[in-house]
């Protein structure tokens, strides 16, 4: 059975949008999370624990709560809304960019945690060794820390990607259901069920199950290769 027959155009559109969203979010998150994880690892600031708590909040917070506050922030009187107005760009609410912003918060802990675990496992010693070999901070970061965190980086990317794929509550609150803009797989699936179109719902659900299973299988492999490194730290 070909994909074209398996999914119709609207569902394919949703699949493509979901993958695009997860890809953009993971790329941004890796850039944001690497220094953040490093700071959480090394800092002795009294802000470390509160910041860590805020970052991990989406693990326990109902996504609708996060979505509700983001919606308020993106609204015309919210801080993000005023910022977009001042910059003369479109409002984030009910747009793809809005979904990206929401997903950054939503998936942040899933990227930060594996990175932080990997950096803690690397420890201070290899970096000290590099410093005694005349490697400056940036040199040490790229030639020692990142290579030694490789499996942590891959876990972070895989987890962040997979978690963004399954996002529902936040999307529904701030994105709505606009085809090609905010209509991602999970929302599309909900639509099919609402419309009692169980045939299409089955296909989407099966597809997402398959993707999730493949992701977790990949993680198990990584865990075996990384040996002592924990993939999931929570």
């Amino acid at each position, binding site marked *: 059975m070909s994909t074209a027959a398996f999914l119709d155009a609207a569902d394919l559109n949703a699949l493509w949008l979901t993958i695009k969203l997860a890809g953009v979010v993971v790329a941004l998150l890796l850039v944001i999370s690497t220094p953040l994880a490093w700071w959480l690892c090394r800092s002795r600031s009294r802000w470390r624990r509160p910041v860590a708590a805020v970052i991990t909040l989406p693990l326990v917070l109902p996504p609708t709560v996060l979505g509700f506050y983001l919606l308020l922030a993106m609204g015309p009187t919210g801080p993000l809304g005023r910022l977009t107005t001042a910059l003369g760009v479109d409002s984030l609410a009910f747009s793809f960019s809005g979904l990206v912003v929401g997903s950054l918060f939503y998936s942040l802990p899933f990227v930060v945690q594996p990175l932080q675990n990997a950096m803690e496992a690397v420890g201070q010693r290899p970096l000290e060794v590099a410093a*005694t070999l005349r490697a400056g901070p940036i040199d040490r970061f790229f030639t020692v820390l990142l*290579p030694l965190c490789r499996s942590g980086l891959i876990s972070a990317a895989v987890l962040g990607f997979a978690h963004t794929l399954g996002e529902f509550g936040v999307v529904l609150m701030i994105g709505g259901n606009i085809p090609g803009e905010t209509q991602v797989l999970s929302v599309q699936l909900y639509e099919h069920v609402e419309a009692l179109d169980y045939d299409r719902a089955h296909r989407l659900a099966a597809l997402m199950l398959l993707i999730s299973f493949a992701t977790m299988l990949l993680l198990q492999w990584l865990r075996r290769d990384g040996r002592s490194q924990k993939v999931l730290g929570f």
Partner: protein
Amino acid sequence: MSEHIHARFCLPFSKSDFQLDVDLRLPRQGVTAIFGPSGSGKTTLLRCIAGLQHSPVGELYFGGDCWQRGRHRVPCHRRPIAYVFQEASLFPHLNVAQNLRYALRRAAADGPSLAEVCELLALDALMERRPDRLSGGERQRVAIARALLIAPRLLLMDEPLSGLDPARKAEILPFLEQLCRQSNIPILYVSHSVDEVCRLADHLVVMNDGRVIDQGPLEKMLIDRHLSSDSDSDVSALLRAEVEEIDTQWQLARLAFDGGHLWVRSNGESIGSELRLRIRAQDISITLSAPSDSSILNILPSSIVAISDEPGGAMQLLQLAIGNSQLLARLTRRSVHQLGLRVGMPVYAQLKSVAIIR
């Protein structure tokens, strides 16, 4: 320009206690061993000198160069040092050759070549191996090679042999001895082993509880401080001697030291070569007259400089002068009493064994 390393560090542990409180002038040549029990601050001192640890109060001068003073502090990667860590410190994601090239790429211009260093430490067969496929001894050899390749002006070694079993130690020591003899880089060598110190060091700093108790030339420190590692059995003295004569009939070598001469088993030494001898206090016995019927080869006329009690009460240590050299002898208190030994008395020291340590 000052020829010293001047290090003053004050590192508080808690309000009343210090992790490190030192003010040191160290020679900028030869091997200076920093000796003391574990927890005495040796490693902390080395880390402060390397710039790996920050002592809020401190001053560090390497000759005329200031590495730390007040708020001015040269970061570790800008100090012309190299550091050999206690345990394996090779980068696990790089093989031996890549670990060495990591240093080579960042090295000062006038450093030794890869080929020279690989030959010195016999690394040619290991180049393609990854660190987890090396033995502990091989790993330390690679770490030492990597430290040399950076072309340091000061080499810091933090108990590089302590993680190794005796067989591995014996495998590395010859490399270290050769390095210490040949290198014109000053070396600071942290150790709690009298044996390593006797073999490698020229100068000794004795530390305890974060403070420097004493420092000076190795021979003097061994005599003055009765240094021992774990047991008392390695209290010893050091003599530097020169091969004067080889007796091929009896396979013996006659060595001259400052104060007399000694016979030792000849092991292919050439005349004129310099040796370092270690004589343990427990291997010396004392007679009042020169015995003519003893099997002991080396009987040296000497005089008693000092007598001190050893902890435990049964044993005493005699400090003996032979010309300008000094030895330590461990006797029971009863023997000292029965022979009526006193400071200033002329006696004969019988040396049961003399170890050539390098």
